[in-house]
């Protein structure tokens, strides 16, 4: 496998298909898009299968110096990037399937935009050059602008503007910080910059500039307001990809850039992140409770989940960061599934008002089952993916600050409240409305979207080691890098004193292990 440019191939397949989609008919465009995304998914599986867990930090590296002059075409992945790439390529075919029937106008352009989106997203995770990263990072604005603006709901134009300008305003400050970093370190290579020690004074400014950008992408309170608008107006698949992958770009930027590159500033400004995260968890959960629009409710719940991610990342310990990463993956799958669940009934009744539904358990039992599973996963029921991430990250946060852990944990309780309340109003209750009675249960296409999502949510909940193993080494590296800057936590954890085991028994066991 070594030497074969599989990462470039993964970028090329959707890129070529994106161009092709513009020139073929509607029906053909759907198949081209599905074929290309499935092919990319297969490539992603090959990538995962060949990834050497515990091997070199950066694998599958490709470096072409000089073709862009000042910066390089440098690709490469570590475990974290691998997992997020897998998330992207897994969700993309499902997004295409989700819009198979609901998108009727300008299908070629739509499919093309989604494929561009895929290129951009996996490009962000693959880039090993600061400027290449920025180009991919920003390029995502263009297809999303079109997706929201052309195929969105009634207020789509406003939402598209808000999404574009909000995120652009954040990003440009990061560009200035990148210019300063390149001038200081004299290189654009991310692996080199990861180990470069910037002056402490400078770190603070760089950290703030990156924070301005990534907090908007994340989104963190109080710059989250673009998200509910964008989600509500976007078409179903647009919401899926927005919640599934785009929201992860912010957190990815935190762990890839801010924490290892500016460890001192991260340590000093930890309280900013904790403070905003605590507010976000409680505030957005409460806001979610009173929503009457299903998509808005899930959008606010995303903000709350992302706040636990940021708090977990800034716990600066193995558990917290691993947990945050698992929440990212879990939320990517679960929120995409929830948005699809909303899309399923929206396609039938063309409204997102919670009150217009009720009693779906009677006439849509399969749908009710899936919706239940994802609701539970969102709450964090043991056995689902949500539990693993939330437990790990909260344990990590507790080690850093028990108060932050206390406030963040209320988010889980509130999360249970708004999700169960949503579920009760939509699925349970009397089936009285005539148009709701007429709604048919899932069709095979919808099964095909929901079944893989459900399988992954359960897999991640029952055996998270598959997902944690590739990332463990990278998290250890980040934790080691942060160690000198880590403030003392208030938990003062001490190892317990287990009963002394019988000596010869332990030796025998050890010897057995060696054989």
């Amino acid at each position: 496998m070594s030497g074969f440019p599989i990462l470039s191939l993964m970028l090329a397949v959707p890129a070529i298909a994106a161009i092709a989609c513009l020139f073929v008919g509607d029906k053909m465009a759907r198949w081209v898009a599905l074929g290309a995304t499935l092919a990319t998914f297969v490539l992603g599986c090959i990538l995962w299968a060949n990834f050497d867990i515990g091997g070199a930090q950066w694998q599958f590296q490709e470096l072409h110096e000089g073709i862009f002059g000042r910066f390089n075409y440098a690709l490469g992945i570590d475990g974290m990037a691998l997992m997020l790439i897998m998330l992207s390529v897994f969700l993309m075919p499902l997004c295409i399937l989700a819009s198979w029937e609901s998108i009727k106008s300008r299908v070629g352009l739509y499919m093309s935009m989604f494929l561009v989106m895929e290129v951009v997203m996996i490009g962000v995770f693959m880039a090993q050059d600061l400027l290449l990263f920025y180009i991919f990072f920003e390029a995502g604005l263009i297809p999303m602008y079109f997706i929201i603006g052309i195929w969105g709901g009634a207020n789509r134009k406003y939402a598209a503007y808000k999404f574009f300008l909000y995120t652009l305003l954040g990003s440009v400050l990061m560009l200035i910080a990148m210019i300063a970093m390149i001038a200081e370190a004299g290189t654009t290579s991310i692996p080199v910059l990861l180990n470069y020690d910037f002056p402490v004074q400078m770190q603070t400014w760089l950290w703030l500039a990156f924070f301005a950008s990534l907090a908007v992408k994340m989104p963190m309170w109080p710059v989250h307001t673009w998200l509910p608008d964008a989600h509500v107006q976007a078409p179903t698949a647009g919401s899926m990809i927005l919640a599934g992958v785009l929201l992860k770009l912010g957190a990815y930027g935190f762990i890839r850039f801010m924490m290892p590159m500016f460890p001192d500033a991260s340590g000093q400004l930890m309280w900013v992140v904790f403070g905003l995260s605590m507010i976000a968890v409680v505030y957005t959960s409460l806001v979610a409770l009173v929503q009457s629009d299903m998509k808005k409710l899930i959008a606010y719940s995303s903000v709350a989940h992302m706040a636990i991610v940021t708090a977990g990342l800034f716990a600066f310990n193995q558990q917290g960061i691993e947990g945050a990463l698992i929440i990212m993956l879990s939320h990517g799958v679960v929120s995409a599934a929830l948005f699809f669940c909303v899309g399923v009934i929206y396609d039938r009744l063309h409204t997102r008002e919670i009150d217009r539904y009720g009693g779906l358990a009677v006439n849509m039992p399969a749908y009710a089952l899936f919706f239940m599973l994802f609701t539970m996963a969102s709450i964090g029921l043991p056995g689902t993916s949500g539990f693993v991430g939330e437990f790990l990250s909260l344990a990590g946060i507790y080690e850093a600050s028990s108060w932050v852990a206390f406030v963040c944990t209320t988010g889980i309780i509130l999360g249970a409240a708004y999700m169960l309340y949503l579920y009760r109003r939509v699925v349970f209750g009397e089936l009285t409305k005539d148009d709701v009675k007429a709604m048919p249960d899932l069709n095979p296409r919808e099964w095909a979207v929901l079944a893989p999502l459900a399988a992954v949510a359960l897999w991640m909940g029952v055996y998270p080691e598959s997902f944690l193993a590739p990332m463990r080494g990278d998290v250890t590296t980040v934790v080691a890098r942060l160690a000198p800057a880590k403030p003392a936590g208030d938990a003062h954890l001490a190892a317990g004193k287990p009963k002394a085991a019988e000596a010869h028994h332990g030796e025998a066991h050890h010897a057995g292990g060696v054989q």
Partner: protein
Amino acid sequence: MTADLMLIWPELILTIGGLITLMLGTFLGDRQVGIYQLSALLTLAAATAAVVALFGVQTSVFSGTLSVDNFGGFAKLLIYAASFVSILIAPRFFTSGMRAEYPALILFATLGMGIMASSRDLMTLYVGLELNSLAAYVLASFMRNDDRSSEAGLKYFILGALASGMLLYGISLLYGFSGTTDFTGIAKAMGGELNIGLIFGIVFVLAGLGFKISAVPFHMWTPDVYEGAPTPVTTFFASAPKVAAMAMMTRVVIEAMGPAVGAWQQIIIFLALASIILGAVGAIGQKNIKRLLAYSSINNVGFMLVGLAAGTQQGVEAVLTYLLVYVVTTLGAFLVVLQLRDAEGNQIESIPALAGLSQRRPGIAAAMTVFLFSLAGIPPLFGFWPKYLVFEAAVNANLVPLAVAGIVASVIGAFYYISIIKTMYFDDKSDTEIPAGGGVIAEDAVITASALWLSVIGYLFIPVLAVISASAAAVLF
């Protein structure tokens, strides 16, 4: 003397070619559009070849009044290319027949601009500037039966004359206090103690030059002239003279005023920020696409000035790269505007009429989208790269607050660019029919080529661009 003449072949070719074109028009009458268009295009091609042949030569001619160097060469290549396109697109616009004066005037203006870009003496500079301006005033009012066109010409003339007056006053002050009009001599005088006369001279010269590049607060003429002038002329105004004036300003600032950084840097910074912000804010309410592109050009000049404010070689390289990308984008955008005609063949200039263009003319709409996102500097389009370079130059010259202010203001600019895209893609179809076809292959080719270049392909040219712009910028330091 004869040796000097051998070094100004591009100028000689343009002079002779311009005269021949004029003669052809006189003797053949206005019917033979093809012949004098061809003669003008051949002239420009020959002049381009002459510039290429002289590339690498670095000397000054005619007692140091005119410089032959890569910096001038780079600017001239851009100017000639822009003029070439402006002549190429004209016959289709002037449906009643393009008169021979049009290509001839463009050639004379081009000649003046070449002199602007390579003069090393304030007097030559002024001669070049006026040669260009006089031709430009006539071009602006070229459709003499059209009220808007006549108004544009008059407005341009009056305000241009005012600016020339200010420039001349500044030149006289600089001459009076330094005793010379030669850039090297002025730089020597600037190296010492700056007296009030020199400072006033700097201010007036920069004000006069600011008018030519339409930097805020000397920009008022731009939207009116761009709107009123015939579209091929607007295409010309938005591209070639911008290059010439920017090159001239760079040369004056770096070569003549170089030692007095403290005196001019703050002026340039003000011009830059004012242009970026006002260019962006002013564009928001515009309903006419040509006016909007006028504000966009003001906005872009602001970004170029950020690079110039750095005052370093890196900054000048950034300005040159910016000019190249800007010219390609602007030409493309105006060519798209030229393609927009309703069923009766009238030009469509109103932005609301573009509603739903993506469904009527997907190719044109897509190309326009590329140009607009590129002007806004959104990666992965190539318009991002020159913006990156100017900000990098500013940051490396310790002008971080300028860079931050400029880049934040660029978001305001993004708003109106994406609002046109909104009109073309999100809005329902307007009543205005925009039938396809009638396009000349050459126009389509230019649009396609520039759109492709500005999409990802442009990044592959960065190494070449870096070498060329570095060799051009090095001349000034």
